[in-house]
């Protein structure tokens, strides 16, 4: 089922959670709502579920108006951030709940319910824990039970609120891969909320980046990562270095370099900010050719497969951060205090009034 959000606004008292948000989620896609806390992503998810009603705007399911539909009628599966498992019920009863509350006419028989729950338990790989209570499960297991419970009623839409937020790093990694595979199997239209860019990039078909109640950008993971539409998206996805300078008719002057900036062809000597990802800064021993900035190595730190290098630009006290693969760093044999050249491989320039 496709979801369409049309011009939805929502405020809580004086706080505006959503400002005129419109979005289409095509049938069968897995979409991530990505943004910092307070960006309105959870409110949007709850409005889709019918757990909250918008102040204005409409929600359409498969082109049909659903704004006024009760939660119970929307056929959404909702996975809560803290799972909201019924703590007085076993895993089995939790998963069966949605089937047992159906009106008598449409309620499956006991045997059908049992079969269905067992299939779901198999799907979430917890077949032998059917009689446990939620308190006896680990975080990752609870998460999967919550998911199975939501899937039991065969929802048209699956909504997940920070599904991996409360888990530790290793379990989180496993579960999100599992969720991705699961979605490839069952293909139910899914929307999940996250503040973790890595999670969104790895799991989602499409990413919707939100900030202050508005959508900043939507697109495939590579689109939002490689071609951020706004300074906010640049800043929010991945670590980034800022260069201040000016841009004039498609050429930017930053840190003593002349860079081409075709998207600002109409700019007339405007103040501008250049964004360069840390891994888009190359470090060279000798600065032959143009386009490199002289800098001093201030600090070196190995983080797993990467090495982070803090550089102080010469002639100023500004620090920038570069990330090199470990073997590249080994080859360069960098030392703290050394003079090197930093070359931005890719820079995106925004005229200053867009600045966040």
């Amino acid at each position, binding site marked *: 089922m496709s979801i369409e959000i049309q011009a939805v606004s929502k405020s809580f*008292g004086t*706080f505006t959670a959503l400002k005129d948000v419109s979005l289409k989620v095509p049938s069968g896609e897995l979409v991530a709502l990505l943004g910092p*806390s307070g960006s309105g992503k*959870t*409110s949007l998810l709850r409005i889709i579920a019918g*757990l*909250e*009603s918008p102040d204005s705007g409409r929600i359409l399911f498969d082109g049909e108006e659903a704004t006024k539909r009760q939660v119970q009628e929307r056929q959404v599966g909702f996975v809560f951030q803290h799972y909201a498992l019924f703590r007085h019920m076993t895993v089995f009863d939790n998963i069966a709940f949605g089937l047992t509350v159906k009106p008598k006419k449409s309620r499956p028989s006991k045997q059908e319910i049992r079969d269905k729950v067992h299939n779901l338990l198999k799907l979430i790989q917890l077949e032998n824990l059917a009689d446990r209570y939620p308190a006896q499960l680990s975080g990752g297991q609870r998460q999967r039970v919550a998911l199975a419970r939501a899937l039991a009623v065969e929802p048209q839409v699956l909504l997940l609120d920070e599904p991996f937020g409360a888990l530790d790093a290793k379990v989180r990694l496993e579960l999100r891969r599992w969720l991705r595979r699961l979605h490839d199997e069952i293909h139910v239209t899914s929307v999940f909320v996250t503040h973790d860019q890595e999670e969104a990039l790895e799991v989602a078909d499409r990413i919707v980046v939100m900030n202050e109640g508005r959508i900043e950008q939507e697109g495939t993971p590579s689109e939002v990562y490689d071609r951020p539409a706004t300074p906010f998206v640049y800043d929010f996805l991945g670590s980034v270095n800022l260069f201040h300078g000016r841009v004039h008719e498609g050429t930017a002057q930053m840190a003593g370099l002349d860079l081409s900036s075709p998207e600002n062809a109409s700019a007339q000597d405007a103040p501008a900010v250049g964004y360069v990802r840390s891994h888009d800064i190359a470090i060279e021993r000798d600065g032959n050719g143009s386009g490199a900035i002289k800098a001093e190595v201030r600090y070196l730190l190995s983080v797993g497969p990467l090495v982070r290098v803090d550089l102080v630009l010469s002639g100023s006290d500004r620090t920038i951060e570069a990330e090199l693969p470990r073997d590249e760093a080994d080859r360069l044999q960098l030392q703290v205090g050394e003079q090197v050249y930093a070359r931005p491989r890719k820079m995106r320039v925004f005229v200053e009034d867009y600045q966040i």
Partner: protein
Amino acid sequence: MAGGRAKNNVLPGFTPALGYTIFYLSLIVLIPLSALFFKTATLTWDDFVAAVTAPRVLASYRVTFGASLAAAVINGFFGVLVAWVLVRYRFPGKKLIDALVDLPFALPTAVAGITLASIYSQNGWLGRYLEPRGIKVAFTPLGIAVAMVFIGLPFVVRTVQPVLEELDQEIEEAASCLGANRWQTFRRVLLPTMLPAILTGFALSFARAVGEYGSIIFIAGNMPMVSEITPLLIITKLEQYDYAGATAIATVMLVVSFFMLLCINLLQKWSRRFAE
């Protein structure tokens, strides 16, 4: 984001539930209580003042508030001690004792009244040792205070106990690492943290004692001007069909109750000021 989510909550039944709550509250509590003020309003100001400041009434205030204050002070001290011992130390029978602290909540006041009266009377278990030494408890203001200590005790223990339980052992360890001895730690670190709870318990215990009737009348002796408490005076006036007098005094009691309730609410607000 969590802030204002409630007002468009999807859970069903808010309007009927709130409606019934207000209806039942008005029917059982608010309308009957307002009857008291309407009845009082039929008195002239001079009559009202005369009724609530008659010498016998003033004497009953002195007895009631004096004994309540004394009882609340005793409960404040021993209540903290009992709470401390129950939270911090282990000893046989602790669970049983902990449960027993609530006895004054559960034991009907009339039962407490006749029992205390008989224990402290001339031939009672304690009275027979106390009276020869010149300590008269039954039928004196002292007896009133004893009954008030009984009924007020759980309030202090049960308000201080959870605060002590929540106290992180680390703050005491921090204090002792900084060189404080045990007494200094108690006085400078623990006591200030417990103070709002102690005062709340003190106020609850005081408020309960001021209004108490059942457990006191049997031990009080009920001598006008000496050991007559204000609630009893209300009943006496009522039995003499002096509705106006009874109502006037009851209004004073009610205003005092409201004032105490306000103080307790403020104290509780204050005690939450360090909470996360």
